[in-house]
C-alpha cells in the first residue's frame, strides 16, 4: 500500500512536470541556467559560448576569466566590466577586447545568477565546481556599496586569473639575501638569510618579506617541450639577470623601475634545462617579471607571479584615412589635442589641420599622414586619437576671440551659446577646400585656410563682417598660446616654438602682443568687411 502510494505520487509528479510548459510557469520553479543564458547573455556571448559575430565579442568557452575561482565571475555579473581585456579565442590566443559588459546585479536575482553561472561554468569544455546562493549573497555583501562597473585592471588586482596546469618551473627554490647594492652583487660570495621552496614554480619576491635592500636568487628546472629557439623577456625594479644552463641570457642592469624590459634568445632542446634568476632591490618600488616565448607557446608564458607586460605586436587595427588626389579629407571624431567638436582637414599634399568648432580657431597643424580611424571605428570607439602625421603644432587651447581691457589683462573669451559665439558650419570650394563660418557677437566671420605645398605654408584668410553698429571694443584674436613666441627678423612675423613661423598681415594690423607664451592680435575693426591674413610656415 505504502509502495503503491509512492508510485502513484511519482507518476503524478511526472505528469505535472510534463504539463508545466503548457501552463503559466511560476517563478518558484527552479531557474534553468541554459534558458536564462539564451535570454539574457547569448546575444553577445553566443549560444555556443564562443562570442557573438564570429568572436567579435568575448567567448566564455575556455575563458580563464570565467574558469577557476568563482568570485571573479560573480563580481563581473554583479557589477559589469569595462576596459581592455585579453581572452584567448580559437583563432587568437591574445585576442583583445575593449567593450562593456553591463552590470546584471540589479536585473538578475540570486537564483538566476547561480543558474546562469553554473550553466556557463560547466558548458563548452568549462568545468568547475557548482556555486551556491550563498556564494552570490556573500559577493553581494562584499561589494554592496559599489556603484560603478569594474575596470578590468582593478578586478584583476582583486581577483587575479589563476594560472592553470603544472608549475612552469619545476623544483624551484628561492634564496633571500640582505644587503644594499646599486649593481647586481656576486651572489656566490653571499650567505642567504632564508631559503624557500616555490611550489607554484613562479619567480616571486613574496618570500623576501622585505621591501628594501635585499636580493633573491631562484634556481630550478625549466621544462621545454619542443626543440627550438626561445625568447625570454625580463623586467625588474631594480636589477636582475637570467641564466639558462649556466649561460647569461639577458640582464636588466643597475637601478631603475619596471619598464626597462630586456630580451634574450637561446636555443633549447626538448627536456629539462637549468634556470637561474638573480635579482636585487635597492630602495623604493620593487618587482620582477619573466616571460617565455617560443615553439608551441601560443601566448607568452609567464614564469613570474607578477604578470609580464609583453607587447605581442598585435596592435589595434589601423584604418588610415587619406585625402583623395587633389582633394581634401575630413574627420569629425575626437581628435586628441583639440576639442570634442574638432573638424580635421587633410589636404592631399601632406598638410593637415584641426579646426575647433568649440573654440572657433585652428588648434592643430601637422604634416604627412592625416588620421587613423582605427581607434574610433573598432569596438565602441572610446577615447581621443591624435593625428597620424608628424610635426604636430598645437597653436591654441582656448577660445580665440576675446576682449582685453589692457594688454596685461587675463584672457576672457567671448562666451559660447546664444548669439555670443556660434559655429555656423563650412562650405567646400575648389578641391573641397573648406571655409569655416562662425559668429562672434554681431560679427560674421569666414575663415579659409589654403595649403601651399611647395612652400610648406598654410595661408589663412579671416574675413570679418562688421555691422554698421561697429565691433566690440578691445577685441583680440589669439594666434598662439603655450609655445615660445619670439618676433622674427621680417616685419609682422613671429617664431612659434622651434618648428613654425607665422606672418600676420591685413586691414587691422597693429603690432601683435607677445606675452608669456601668447601671441595676441589686437583688432581695430571698421564696419564692413575686414580681412586678416595669417600665414603659417613650417621651417
Amino acid at each position, binding site marked *: 500500500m505504502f509502495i503503491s502510494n509512492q508510485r502513484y505520487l511519482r507518476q503524478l509528479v511526472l505528469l505535472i512536470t510534463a504539463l508545466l510548459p503548457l501552463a503559466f510557469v511560476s517563478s518558484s520553479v527552479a531557474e534553468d541556467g541554459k534558458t536564462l543564458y539564451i535570454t539574457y547573455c547569448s*546575444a553577445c556571448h553566443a549560444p555556443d559560448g564562443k562570442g*557573438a*559575430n*564570429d568572436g567579435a565579442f568575448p567567448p566564455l568557452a575556455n575563458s580563464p576569466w570565467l574558469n577557476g575561482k568563482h568570485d571573479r565571475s560573480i563580481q563581473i555579473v554583479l557589477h559589469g566590466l569595462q576596459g581592455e581585456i585579453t581572452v584567448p579565442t580559437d583563432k587568437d590566443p591574445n585576442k583583445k577586447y575593449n567593450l562593456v559588459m553591463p*552590470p*546584471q546585479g540589479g*536585473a538578475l536575482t540570486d537564483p538566476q545568477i547561480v543558474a546562469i553561472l553554473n550553466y556557463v561554468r560547466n558548458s563548452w569544455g568549462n568545468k568547475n565546481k557548482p556555486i551556491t546562493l550563498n556564494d552570490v549573497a556573500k559577493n553581494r555583501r562584499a561589494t554592496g556599496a559599489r556603484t560603478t562597473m569594474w575596470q578590468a585592471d582593478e578586478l584583476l588586482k582583486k581577483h587575479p586569473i589563476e594560472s592553470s596546469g603544472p608549475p612552469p618551473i619545476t623544483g624551484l627554490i628561492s634564496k633571500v639575501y640582505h644587503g644594499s647594492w646599486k649593481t647586481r652583487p656576486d651572489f656566490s660570495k653571499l650567505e642567504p638569510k632564508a631559503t624557500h621552496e616555490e611550489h607554484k614554480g613562479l619567480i616571486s619576491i613574496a618570500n623576501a618579506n622585505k621591501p628594501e635592500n635585499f636580493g633573491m636568487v631562484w634556481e630550478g628546472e625549466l621544462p621545454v617541450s619542443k626543440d627550438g629557439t626561445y625568447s625570454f623577456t625580463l623586467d625588474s625594479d631594480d636589477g636582475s639577470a637570467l641564466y639558462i644552463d649556466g649561460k647569461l641570457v639577458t640582464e636588466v642592469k643597475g637601478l631603475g623601475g619596471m619598464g626597462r624590459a630586456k630580451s634574450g634568445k637561446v636555443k633549447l632542446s626538448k627536456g629539462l634545462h637549468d634556470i637561474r634568476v638573480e635579482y636585487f632591490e635597492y630602495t623604493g618600488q620593487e618587482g620582477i617579471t619573466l616571460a617565455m616565448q617560443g615553439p608551441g607557446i601560443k601566448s607568452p608564458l609567464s614564469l613570474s607571479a607578477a604578470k609580464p607586460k609583453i607587447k605581442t605586436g598585435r596592435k589595434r587595427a589601423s584604418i588610415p584615412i587619406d585625402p583623395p588626389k587633389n582633394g581634401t579629407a575630413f574627420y569629425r571624431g575626437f581628435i586628441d589635442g583639440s576639442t570634442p567638436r574638432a573638424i580635421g582637414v587633410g589636404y592631399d599634399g601632406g598638410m593637415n589641420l584641426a579646426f575647433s568648432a568649440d573654440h572657433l580657431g585652428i588648434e592643430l597643424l601637422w604634416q604627412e599622414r592625416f588620421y587613423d580611424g582605427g581607434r574610433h571605428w573598432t569596438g*565602441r570607439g572610446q577615447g581621443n586619437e591624435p593625428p597620424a602625421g608628424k610635426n604636430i603644432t598645437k597653436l591654441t587651447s582656448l577660445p580665440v576671440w576675446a576682449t582685453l581691457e589692457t594688454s596685461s589683462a587675463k584672457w576672457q573669451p567671448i562666451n559660447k551659446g546664444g548669439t555670443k559665439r556660434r559655429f555656423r558650419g563650412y*562650405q567646400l570650394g575648389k578641391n573641397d577646400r573648406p571655409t569655416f563660418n562662425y559668429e562672434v557677437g554681431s560679427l560674421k566671420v569666414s575663415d579659409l585656410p589654403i595649403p601651399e605645398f611647395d612652400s610648406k605654408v598654410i595661408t589663412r584668410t579671416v574675413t570679418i563682417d562688421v555691422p554698421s553698429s561697429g565691433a566690440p571694443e578691445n577685441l583680440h584674436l589669439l594666434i598662439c598660446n603655450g609655445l615660445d613666441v619670439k618676433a622674427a627678423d621680417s616685419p609682422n612675423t613671429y617664431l612659434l616654438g622651434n618648428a613654425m613661423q607665422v606672418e600676420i598681415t591685413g586691414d587691422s594690423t597693429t603690432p601683435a602682443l607677445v606675452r608669456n607664451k601668447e601671441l595676441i592680435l589686437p583688432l581695430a575693426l571698421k564696419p564692413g568687411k575686414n580681412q586678416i591674413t595669417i600665414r603659417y610656415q613650417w621651417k
Partner: protein
Amino acid sequence: MRSLLLSLVFISPLLAASTQEDFYLREEIPLPKGEVMEIGSIALMPDKKVAVTTRRGDLWICEGAYEEDLSKVKWTAAHRGLHEPLGMFYQDGSLVLTQRPEVSKLTDTDKDGKIDSFETVCADWGINGDYHEYAFGSPADKDGNVWVVLCLTGSFNAKSPWRGWCVRVTPEGEMIPTCSGIRSPGGIGFNAAGETFYTDNQGPWNGSSSLKWLKPGSFQGNPTGNVFYPEQQAIEALENQPNDKSRIVAERERIPKFIPPAVVLPHGKVGQSPTAVIHDHTAGKFGPFSNQVLVGEQTHSEVQRVFTEKVNGIYQGAVIKCLSGFRAGIIPMRLSDDGTLFVGGSNRGWASRGGKPFTFERVRWTGKTPFEILEMCAKPDGFELSFTEAVDPSSVKPESFSMAAWTYIYQSKYGSPEVDQASPVIKSATLSGDGKSVRLVVEGLVKGHVHHLSSPGVRSASGNKLWHQDAYYTLNEIPD
C-alpha cells in the same frame, strides 16, 4: 487529462504554421563593395533616392532601392567626414542631420552629387569626448522642430550640458530643453497623432527597456540630468526627486511630471536594445497595422509592433513581435509612402542575433494578411482585443488565453528583475457581433504592471493560429 494531451498532439500538425515569408518579404539591399556601411540613419529623398549615413561618418545616396531587381542598385558617396549621425531627413533640397555634436543642414548647392554646404543649425548641447554621448534626432515635427535625445555621459552621468535631456531645435537654430529623465536612447520619432516617442534602454532607473512618450515638460524617469533644470526657465523643476528602490506607480504620486513608459518592452522576452521609432502612415500599403508604431530592436535584430491608446491622459499599450531575421542589429528605419520599410544596422560594439557586421534591408508586404491581434485596449474590467480577421467562435473561451503580470523595481541600479508577480484570471471571453473582436473580462488587473497576454488557443475563422500569440500590455492607468 490524457485526452487533452492527445488532442494537442494530433491537432498541432493540422494547423498550417504561418511564417514571415507568407506576409512580409525581407530582402538585403546590396552595399557598395569594400565599404564599411554601419548604417546609423536613413532619409527618403525625392525621385526614389534613399540617403544613408554610416557610423564612420559617410553619407551615401542609393538609387534603385525600390526596384524589383536589387542587383542594379547604384551607390554614390556624397561626403565622408561626418560625426556619427543618428537621425536624418530630407527637407527642401537639403538633408537635415542630427550628428553627435550638432543639428546640421547639408546641401549639394552645385548639384554635382557631392555635399558642399554644411550649415550648423544648432550645437548648443555639450559633448566631452565620451563615446556614449550619442544624440538621436527625429524628423521635423509639424512646427519644423527637430527633437534630439541626448544620452547620458557613459550612459550613467551628466558630465556635459543637457545630457539626459530631450531638446527641440527650431528651424532658426534655437534649442528648447523639453524633457529631463533620459538615460540611453536608441531612436526617436512620432506616432500617427504627431506626438513624439523615443526608446530608452534598460539600465539605471530603467528596469526594462521601453517606449516612452516625450510629453513636453515631462520627466522620463532617470534623475541624472535633473541638474540642468536651473539652466532653463520654461519648465519648473521636479516636485520631488525620485526615491530609489521604489515602483514607478508610487513615484508618479510624488512626481506629477513623471510620465511613465508608454509601453515596456520586457527585457529578454521582447528584446534587449530598442532603437528606431516610426509609425505606419501608409494607410494599408504595409499591411493591416495602419497608424501603429514600429520599434527597431538591435540585439534581437527584429522589428516590433506597438499599439498605443491614451487613458486618463497617459499613453499606454501593448507590444507584439512583428518582423525578425534581419542580418545585423537594427538602428534606423524609414517607411516610404508606397509601403517599403527600409532598415539599416550595425553590430559594432553591441552584438546582435543577426551575425553580420552591418546591413541594409527592405521589407514589403506580400498582400496576405496575417491573423494577429490588431489592437489591445484596456477596459475597467479587462481588455478588448480586435483581430485582423474573423475569429473562430469556438476558440473564444477563457482557456484559450492566459495572463501573467509583473513590474520592475524603479531603482538606480542597472535594470531590475521582474517583481511583484500577479496572476490575473480571465473570467470570460466574448466574441463581438462582427466576429473580429473579443472582450476579455479579467479579475486581478494591477495598475502599473506589464500584463502578458498569451493566446495560444485562439483560431481564425479559417483555422489559423495567431502569427504571434504574445502581447505585453503596460497598464499605467486602468480606465474608469
